[in-house]
């Protein structure tokens, strides 16, 4: 299958946090604000001159400094982000907005503040307290939190954070997501026109650069993909689990002859391309949207919902099985093995669990595991065929 030249553009954006588009935007006087999680509202961080950059640490291979601050027994994503920040890889950012998604990332935020921000008044460092359950009483609290963040952005950067501007940002995000969704849907075809690693590369790039600068390249990519022939594979898989922002991992999985058609992991697109309601109070819309659409295991009461959604994704993307990957020391996803994954396994869905580190490592072992998993799926399919 031929490589599409349009993809090279996105690939380049992933090499460093300060990629060419971010650089260009900063030179134009725009304000890059780093964020860490799906629940940190991108739309709010995209008002006026501001634009969101999701935290990654592509150049970090070891984490000596961060390990001093956070010990070796915390997840390597939290440490890598801190390491990258301490290594001045995030010098270009002018704000950092965290969602209090887990204690480890909270501590990354705290350490960043303690080590890097010594009373810098022009820097917004904010931690959004996203509730862990959908409960009416917590919506006003989250709304108040978002308003406080908007107020801070207004006073610190001089942005006009009016409802009108936020609504405009929400509309633009929705339009952008529509375009992304069209490309994403190529994965649903019987012969997908985009591989999992390619899609992951595109989607990750879209989270790390100003969106308005990505619209044209995305349109070009879409046109190119339309003309492309589809892929055939030994098996179609869904990857589910902890944070993964490195397309090399997906490429490694696909190197064993399968296709990753669904990405249900942190930094993945499921969920990630839904439409935020544009009518009504913008803050309430944002609060409700992120509470309701959240499929992260940090939400205490949504185990059944997560299992149901995962099953829907399997059906929608015609996936044959699940690769369940967890970062070492990731508690929320670690427990999912006994919760959501157990529900799925009990339903007869083929699953395999892989533990990994944030930076690419253990390739040989992972290849073997994936290969064996694909064979087991093929055997199962064959047995079923024979039985019929």
């Amino acid at each position, binding site marked *: 299958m031929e490589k599409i030249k349009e993809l090279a553009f996105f690939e380049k954006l992933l090499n460093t946090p300060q990629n060419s588009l971010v650089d260009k935007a900063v030179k134009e006087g725009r304000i890059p604000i780093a964020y860490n999680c799906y629940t940190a509202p991108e739309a709010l961080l995209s008002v006026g001159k501001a634009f969101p950059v999701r935290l990654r640490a592509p150049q970090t291979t070891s984490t000596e400094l961060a390990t001093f*601050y956070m010990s070796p027994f915390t997840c390597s994503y939290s440490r890598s982000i801190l390491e990258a920040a301490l290594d001045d890889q995030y010098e270009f950012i002018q704000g950092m907005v965290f969602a209090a998604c887990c204690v480890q990332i909270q501590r990354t935020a705290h350490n960043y503040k303690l080590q890097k921000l010594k009373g810098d008044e022009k820097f917004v460092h904010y931690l959004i*307290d996203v509730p862990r359950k959908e409960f009416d009483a917590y919506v006003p609290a989250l709304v108040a939190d978002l308003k406080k963040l908007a107020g801070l952005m207004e006073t610190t950067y001089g942005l006009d954070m009016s409802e009108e501007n936020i609504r405009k940002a929400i509309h633009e995000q929705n339009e952008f997501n529509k375009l992304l969704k069209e490309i994403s849907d190529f994965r649903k075809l019987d012969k997908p026109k985009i591989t999992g690693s390619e899609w992951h590369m595109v989607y990750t790039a879209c989270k790390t650069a100003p969106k308005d600068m990505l619209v044209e390249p995305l349109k070009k990519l879409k046109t190119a993909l339309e003309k492309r022939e589809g892929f055939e594979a030994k098996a179609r898989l869904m990857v589910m689990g902890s944070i993964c922002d490195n397309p090399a991992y997906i490429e490694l999985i696909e190197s064993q002859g399968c296709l990753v058609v669904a990405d249900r992991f942190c930094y993945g697109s499921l969920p990630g391309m839904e439409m935020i309601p544009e009518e009504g109070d913008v803050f309430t819309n944002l609060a409700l949207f992120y509470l309701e659409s959240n499929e992260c295991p940090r939400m205490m009461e949504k185990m059944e919902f997560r299992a149901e959604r995962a099953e829907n994704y399997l059906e929608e993307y015609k996936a044959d099985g699940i690769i369940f990957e967890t970062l070492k020391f990731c508690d929320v996803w670690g427990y999912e093995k*006994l919760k959501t994954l157990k529900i799925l396994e009990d339903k007869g869905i083929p699953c395999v669990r892989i533990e990994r580190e944030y930076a690419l490592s253990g390739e040989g072992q992972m290849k073997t595991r994936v290969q064996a998993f694909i064979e087991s799926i093929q055997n199962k399919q064959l047995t079923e065929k024979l039985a019929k």
Partner: protein
Amino acid sequence: MSDITKGMLAQAILNDSIKNMMMEQTKAGMAKFKSPEFKAACMKAVADPAAREALIKQLMADPLTAPVAFKLFSPEAQAAMKAQSKKKSKGNAKDQWVDFKYWLKCWKTCMHQPESKEDKAKMKQAQMDFPWMIDLMKTVSMGKRYTEGRTGIALQMSWKAIIHQAAATIEQLNNVFLDPENTVLAQIMVPTQIYKAMDLHHFCAETPANILIMMDQHCHEKYIDEVVNHGLPDDTCNYASQTPGVVLAGHLPNPGTALICSNLPCEAGFSSYAIVERELGIPTYRLDVPYNFKTEEDRAAYVKDMFGMIAFLEETTGHKMDWDKLRKVCEDTNKLGEIELERWEMNRSENPPVCNDMLWFPHLCFFSMDAGRADAVPLFEDLQKLGRRAYMKKECSVKPMKYRAILWNPPTFGYTYFWSWMERCWGIGVVQDMETYGPVNVIDTTSPESMLEGLALQWCNAAMSRHTRGPAENWMGDVAKLTEMYRPDFILNLNHMGCRSSLGLTGAMKEWANENDMPVCIVDYSMYDSRVVSRQGIRDQINNFMMNIMHAEPLDPSLLVFDDDNAW
């Protein structure tokens, strides 16, 4: 019985000649002991040390008496006996009597039986179904270990708290086995005052593993292994992972009414309760303690969450909230808070009267695990009286107290006599600790809303909410505050290897300590698994710190290294 004797016995059963030979030997031995020569030698040995030595040598040389003689008179046996008598000795006759009295009381509490025959049968059956209940008998041993080397008022304070807690645990067991319809299953760190006001009992789901480990360091390990065998990563915090292990092993009593839990202390904690809920299949309510609980909006939301919990309990159990009763419970809680503040204040003096577990244990039991108990008030009043007496007499609970320390992070549950070891080996007195310390607020009892607001504030300020989850300012701010208040010689920072939250601030703590010239003893350990870091492993880290950083001399060098890997 030695292996040789066992072998001979086994052979004797098969072989009559060996049997006869053994009988002959026993008879000969008995005749020897009864002989007038032996009696005379014994009498002589009592008066004359040289004769005693000769007799011991003679007994050791005789193959018949050698095994017993060696066990009684060898230098190792003598040293062990000395150590044992030292361990049991409480200094003077009064202390010895106090110790014996409370020891008996503790047994009485543990052996408590329900009155009716039917209930007795139910409890017996429960012991068969839930084997961990037998481990509760080790409470007496736990008491002995806690009070090892302790004398005076400190001895009384320790025993009182332990016996009270034993009674509270037995009450919980009675609740869940004898009155399950009116009992809810609950996680700790949830406002227990609410159950009491609703006339509901509760059974703490953590009891079979997290509490019982204090009695025996190995008794719960099967539960950790159980959950790991089901696929949970073994590096997950074992505070959280044990309870699902108990459930998966089928060892958690299920009252079948409701389960109340929360998002505390961390992701692992609340995730584990999803497994409990699924396996037991009971209606569950989860409280969501906000991260930013200092903001009014968040706290107001939490109060509404508590109202939600009350509505849920009313619906699932049929019990109604009695606000007058809650008022009484809150008043009791306020009284306890007042006493607690005085205890903390006394510890700021030169001779702190309530150090180590005397401070930590009652707080853990009656503030965090089972807050709002009416009988906790007389206990705390007793402790207050004793504390005041010690304060007036300038009697420090650690004798002699060489070092004042602040304990940061939870203490090691698998090493119950860690406190008393620190006292005896190094003279360390922990004057305040993280699990105990937190702002104590007075609950306004004028209206239901104000009571719940007060309770919300109290539980948001609880240790695992305030320190291990909230902003870093809570953590670092409290360390600085306590250092200023208590003037410690060092900070003992116990780093539980599964606690991502506290590990995440290790470096910040080190830097703060350097800036403030405060020695910090960082001890890596696993809070509930001594297979990860053994008790001696913990002691080694403290010993190294005391010798190399504090340049201290141990009070009792025999306590630096000893084998207790298989001890309770």
